[in-house]
């Protein structure tokens, strides 16, 4: 009997179509059809400049948007061959790990809800709200943030962020303990997840699977350990590895990874170098007509240090913070806002980076850079032709390989095993279909 688990189905994971061949309750064959959320990310990136690709990358894996941003920025920086200051690296690691925790919270919460554990879902979404408040504090938005820039980040951490972050991390840990009490020893949860959706390590490697899926089969491969990027080689964290490759192992691996991510954030907040340059601005607020008069006379030296009153939404991207969070390259990084609004050199620099036909121009060539996404190895492959628009931007989506291996996990099991298996795959349609 053919059963169509159609594109719009209540397991709130996105749109995918499974055509299942059943014999009573046993699954005999599965055909996976994807492409229902194809939004042409790669084609759109070829029509806009490098800095304008960031909003498109947000919406790839929309539960952990900062990891996509960081991956794209690191790839372009590798292509350009530039290095960013330490404080920016720490900030990127903190935001990546916060995104990883939100991704795992959503995955475990949604898969628990599909098996009937509604309270676990509500607890996890509550914990996710705490983290969204942290993200909103710094970036200004909850979900689609476009925070990372090529050469650094958009704005620095706010005052008092460190204490707030420690408090929220303690709250999230409490929620994780509560959920653990609800789910781990639960007879129904345990029976439904144990020995279902099994995959062996050889099959996982043959299909090119990485991430928690691979680690649950016993292979310890994490991009953060194998090819460390940013400052992961200075941090002390463990990589949890399962043994059997079934759904229960994936659940345990995700819960353990969340705890490790919280540890990483705490270490970063303790180690972060102080980036604030001591404020040695001798200038004062100058009236506009005075500025124009002295500029007409040619007295521009004193104008360079003058303060400019700025909008509160540009908080964190002023000259005081800029050296700590952005690379010191004029052809890649936008100037500080006082310079853009205050003197002509800053304005010209800003124009040259923003106008079509100008902008960031990497040398001709191609690079591939892998980052550890929440689902596995997220790789960006960028081909540049020396002009201001990218020639080809390719995302290697981690869940593409997992969905190709999904029939192998399901065949031989029962119909009801589809729900926990599909939940633990953590398929994000934005990433799968791009």
């Amino acid at each position, binding site marked *: 009997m053919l059963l169509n688990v*159609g*594109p*719009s*189905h*209540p397991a*709130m994971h*996105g*749109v995918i179509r499974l055509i299942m061949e059943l014999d009573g309750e046993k699954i005999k064959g599965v055909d996976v059809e994807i*492409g*229902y*959320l*194809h*939004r*042409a990310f790669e*084609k*759109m990136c070829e029509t806009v400049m490098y800095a304008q690709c960031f*909003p498109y990358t947000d*919406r790839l894996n*929309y*539960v952990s948007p900062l990891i996509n941003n960081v991956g794209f920025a690191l790839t372009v920086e590798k292509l350009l061959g530039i290095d960013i200051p330490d404080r920016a690296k720490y900030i990127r690691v903190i935001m990546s790990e916060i995104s990883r925790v939100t991704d795992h919270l*959503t995955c475990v919460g*949604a898969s628990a809800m599909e098996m009937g554990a509604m309270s676990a*879902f*509500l607890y996890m*979404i*509550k914990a*996710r*709200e705490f983290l*969204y408040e942290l993200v909103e504090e710094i970036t200004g938005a*909850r*979900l*689609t943030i476009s925070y990372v820039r090529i050469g650094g980040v958009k704005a620095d951490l706010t005052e008092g962020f460190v204490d707030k972050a420690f408090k929220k991390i303690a709250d999230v840990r409490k929620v994780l303990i509560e959920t653990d009490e609800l789910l781990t020893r639960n007879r129904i949860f345990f029976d439904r997840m144990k020995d279902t959706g099994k995959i062996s390590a050889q099959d996982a490697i043959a299909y090119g699977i990485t991430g928690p899926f691979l680690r649950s089969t016993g292979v310890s491969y994490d991009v953060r350990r194998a090819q460390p990027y940013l400052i992961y080689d200075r941090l002390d964290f463990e990589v949890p590895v399962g043994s059997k490759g079934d759904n229960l192992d994936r659940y345990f691996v995700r819960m353990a990874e969340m705890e490790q991510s919280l540890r990483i954030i705490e270490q970063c907040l303790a180690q972060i170098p102080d980036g604030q340059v001591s404020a040695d601005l001798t200038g004062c607020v100058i009236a506009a007509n005075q500025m124009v008069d002295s500029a007409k006379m040619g007295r521009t030296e004193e104008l360079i240090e003058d303060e400019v009153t700025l909008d509160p939404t540009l908080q964190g991207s002023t000259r005081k913070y800029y050296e700590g969070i952005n690379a010191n390259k004029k052809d890649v990084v936008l100037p500080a806002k006082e310079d853009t609004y205050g003197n002509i050199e800053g304005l010209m620099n800003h124009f040259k980076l923003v106008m079509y036909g100008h902008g960031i121009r990497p040398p001709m060539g191609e690079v591939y850079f892998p980052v550890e996404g929440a689902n596995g190895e997220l790789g960006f492959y960028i081909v540049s032709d020396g002009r201001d628009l990218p020639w080809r931007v390719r995302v290697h989506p981690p869940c593409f390989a997992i969905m190709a291996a999904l029939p192998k996990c399901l065949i031989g099991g029962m119909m009801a095993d589809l729900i926990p298996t599909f939940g633990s795959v953590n398929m994000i*349609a*934005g990433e799968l*279909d791009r």
Partner: protein
Amino acid sequence: MGINFFTSKLNDALGWARKFSIFQYPFVTACCGMEYMSTAAAHYDVDRFGAGFPRFSPRQSDVLFVVGTISQKMAPVLKMVHDQMCEPKWVVAFGVCTCTGGFYDNYATLQGIDTIIPVDIYIPGCPPRPENVLDGLMKLQEKIKKGEQSRTLYDPRTKKGRPAEFQGGYTVEGHIKHIESLS
């Protein structure tokens, strides 16, 4: 004379009952789904409006929440689901990808779902904050109470059928006039 009084009171009572017991079908596709989940969860509760229990079958629901981008491949599925719902039914376009296509102006995205199904409430935002969603839900409740439904599709050639805010571009004078009209 007397019978009109009764039927209008009955309509009021029906409208009141319908607006506080919304059975929605969340047609979730993309990033807006995360904000939908946040709105439905404990922090920005949607259950206090009576809309807390999503019915995952089109035959049993009366409001279709289209959440997230609809691509060309998904459009016939959306139309089929909408046709399967029974009267009276309302449609909410959640997120700017469903209102006008968002910033995905390309070969694969439907430029607004009102080209194929009639839409009652537009909630723009990318993704809209949960407070925006609750505001849209309250406007939907007003519409349900009056028993109004939208029946018109959007025609891209004549550009008719969408609210004025999505037509044309953004001008500074228009924005200033809008701000002044609010005070």
